[in-house]
């Protein structure tokens, strides 16, 4: 199994995610991390709560990873999405991929993050300095991958 996906309540560090990728046949390793921002749409954010339909999220992550493997054939792919309460600066999602050539590493990581945003049953609630908490707008969850450009 060259793809490894996970939903976790534990903090995500780059080292462990990167350890899951890279083979002697690879000329490229790419790590993408989504992080919690201090500001969003002009409001001051103190943290973010991520909720998920975990059993479905793990299936959807596996499906997205499988699609990327079918299309670009990376040597290794690791995807971790965090849930629970995150502070500003913490990593909410990490995607690591290794490929023989660089173009595919970029394509795989970009595909996985875009599909996560379209399809993963995860929701986020921003916490503001005012004490207010707001569920962020999202996308109607898509059942299938976006058509190839």
């Amino acid at each position, binding site marked *: 199994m060259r793809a490894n996906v996970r939903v976790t309540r534990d903090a995500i560090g780059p080292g462990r995610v990167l350890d899951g990728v890279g083979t002697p046949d690879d000329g490229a390793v790419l790590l993408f991390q989504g992080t919690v921002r201090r500001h969003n749409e002009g409001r001051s954010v103190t943290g973010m709560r991520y909720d998920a*339909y975990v059993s479905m999220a793990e299936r959807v992550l596996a499906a997205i990873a499988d699609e990327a493997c079918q299309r670009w054939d990376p040597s290794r792919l690791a995807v971790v*999405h965090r849930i629970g309460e995150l502070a500003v600066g913490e990593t*909410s*999602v990490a995607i690591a991929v290794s490929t023989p050539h660089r173009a595919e590493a970029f394509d795989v990581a970009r595909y996985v993050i875009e599909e996560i945003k379209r*399809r*993963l049953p995860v929701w986020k609630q921003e916490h503001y300095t005012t004490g207010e908490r707001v569920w962020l*707008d999202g996308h109607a969850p*898509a059942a299938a991958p976006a058509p190839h450009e």
Partner: protein
Amino acid sequence: MRIRLLFFAFYRDLAGVDSLDLDLPEGTTARQAVDRVRAHGNGTSRLPAEPAVAVNQEIAGLETVLNEGDEVALLPPVAGG
């Protein structure tokens, strides 16, 4: 037949619970299950009439006919990443 409805995020806030177990007649569709829970009272009446749903962790149409033991999740617009 026994059906479990799941609520997440904003919908959970409206429903006030994570899940509800309903006893529904054979042949009930996902839409009918949603209608039933919206009639259940309190915050659930503010759930949308046509939410996105997943049946057994797969996105499904509202006309999907349910089976004994199915898990029906009402999914607010997603915002992962």
